[in-house]
């Protein structure tokens, strides 16, 4: 019986790996996404059951404690979180996955070497490849953990978006990577005593943790979609590294899948900003010192909700351009209310979604979905840009750099070449913004002075509410 069960384990792992692939495939289409997620969850359950079968009759004390505590925290967090706090939540979950990978690799070093007091390097005791991947697992897991925590702190507003004090970060980062790899190699091949394995493993973990902070801390809010995708990818790579340590193919396969998906998202986000990953990580806009230059505005026309409502009254086509400011003001429901009102008056309404609008990939889509905006109305940049020409009113809500014409007209601009939403093609533009302050890129937005533009200053939610009230009054 037990032998039969033991033979079942690899079959269950294979089943789990196949279901992970099918689940991920499901996640790429709106219609099948929810089922895909459920299939992936089932795959996880099968993998866990297979592992428990493989472990057989052991002391389940720690396993139960871990499962109950983790499950409770995860469930409460997932069910309680506000949809507007989704980027933070994803970052935190990501971080805990990274931490788990690092902890597993550490636990294995302790279990096999430190506790039994085995003499020999990890490469000798665990095998060369397993020792090497144990070091990678600790390092990448640590980077993922603190990197995600810093991303969380930035997203939730506890940490400033762009600290300027880390000027020498390229030097720091490159020396940190050299030191990390050196320590990792020494741990794998040089540390021959249990005590020194313990010491160097902890040193390596500490370097990983510090490195994660250094890597993400200097990166600005607008680059967050890239960073979040990259950390997502790293958490997969860390899981795959743990799979190599344990010679477990399910971990390798699912880790590789996550690593690949995160990498593709990273690529899409970089393309959305016309920047390379290296540029996001190792150079920033501030370096080029264009921030202190010409940010004076001379020709800004401000307007009011009252005036805007009069224009909207006659509009036949309206496009909303949401940005991070929409999320900050939590104005997604008010936008939809206004949109419904306009549709009821016979206007066509669409939303123009820039790939990097917001703080994570797809941020605006989730936000608007929460307000029950039909996803047919959400149009991606390439599809919506030709439509601006025939649009009466474009309403920019809390977006800035993604509509800055400088990206097309000013070769000297740091965002030159970034694909933008061509709102200037529309007949009139209303820009709802708190002030004339520059966007994350810290550069002047010529759209503010464009002849078609009227600025409406104020909190996005409040202004939109006023617009709704005015429009209702006109009916």
């Amino acid at each position, binding site marked *: 019986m037990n032998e039969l069960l033991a033979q079942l384990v690899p079959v269950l792992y294979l089943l789990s790996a196949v279901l992970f692939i099918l689940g991920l495939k499901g996640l790429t289409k709106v219609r099948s996404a929810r089922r895909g997620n459920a299939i992936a969850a089932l795959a996880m359950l099968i993998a866990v059951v297979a592992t428990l079968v493989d472990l057989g009759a052991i002391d389940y004390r720690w396993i139960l404690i*871990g499962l109950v505590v983790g499950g409770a925290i995860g469930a409460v967090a997932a069910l309680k979180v506000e949809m507007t706090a989704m980027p933070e*939540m994803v970052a935190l979950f990501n971080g805990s*996955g990274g931490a*788990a990978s690092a902890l597993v690799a550490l636990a294995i070093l302790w279990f096999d070497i430190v506790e039994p007091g085995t003499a020999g390097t990890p490469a000798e005791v665990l095998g060369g490849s397993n020792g090497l991947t144990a070091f990678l697992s600790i390092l990448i897991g640590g980077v993922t953990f603190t990197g995600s925590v810093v991303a969380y702190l930035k997203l939730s507003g506890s940490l400033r978006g762009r600290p300027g004090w880390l000027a020498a970060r390229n030097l720091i980062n490159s020396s940190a990577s050299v030191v990390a790899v050196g320590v990792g190699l020494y741990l794998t091949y040089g540390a021959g005593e249990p005590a020194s394995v313990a010491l160097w493993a902890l040193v390596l973990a500490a370097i990983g943790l510090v490195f994660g902070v250094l890597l993400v801390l200097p990166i600005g809010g607008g680059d967050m979609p890239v960073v979040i995708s990259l950390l997502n990818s790293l958490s*997969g790579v860390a899981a795959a590294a743990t799979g190599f340590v344990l010679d477990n193919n399910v971990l390798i396969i699912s880790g590789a899948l996550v690593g690949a998906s995160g990498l593709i998202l990273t690529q899409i986000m970089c393309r959305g900003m016309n920047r390379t990953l290296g540029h996001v990580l190792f150079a920033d806009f501030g370096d080029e010192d264009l921030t202190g230059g010409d940010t004076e505005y001379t020709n800004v026309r401000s307007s009011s909700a009252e005036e805007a409502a009069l224009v909207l009254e006659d509009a036949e086509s309206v496009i909303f351009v949401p940005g991070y400011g929409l999320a900050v003001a939590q104005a997604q429901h008010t936008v939809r209310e206004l949109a419904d009102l306009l549709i009821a008056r016979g206007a066509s309404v669409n939303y123009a979604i820039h790939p990097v609008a917001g703080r994570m990939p797809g941020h605006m889509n989730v936000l608007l979905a929460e307000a029950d905006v039909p996803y047919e109305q959400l149009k991606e940049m390439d599809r919506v840009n030709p439509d601006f020409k025939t649009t009466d009113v474009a309403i920019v809500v809390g977006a800035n750099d993604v509509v800055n014409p400088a990206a097309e007209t000013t070769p000297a601009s740091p965002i030159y070449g970034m694909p933008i939403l061509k709102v200037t093609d529309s007949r009139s533009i209303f820009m709802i913004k708190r002030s004339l302050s520059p966007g994350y890129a810290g550069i002047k937005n010529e759209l503010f002075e464009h002849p078609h533009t009227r600025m409406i200053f104020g909190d996005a939610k409040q202004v939109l509410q006023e617009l709704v009230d005015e429009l209702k009054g006109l009916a």
Partner: protein
Amino acid sequence: MMGVLLIGLYVFVLAIFVGVEIITKIPPTLHTPLMSGANAISGITLVGALYAAQQGEVRVSSILGAFAIACATINVVGGFLVTDRMLGMFGGRKGKR
């Protein structure tokens, strides 16, 4: 020993190709759910954590393992639930609220 590593590398590289093939055409609407769903999948480290925490006595490895299990389970349970919640909103605009 190298045999196992080599097989692992085969699996790793091929799985990356599968991942890239599957995900390349994802619509932007689903970027966030894909990310958080994939994120939950990366909680597969849970399997490794279970192996690490198999000793009942109080020792460093089992405590590290228990923490690893807790972290991975937060990732798994939270990740799948939150993805499901999000996807529920995408499809559920007919009379859900």
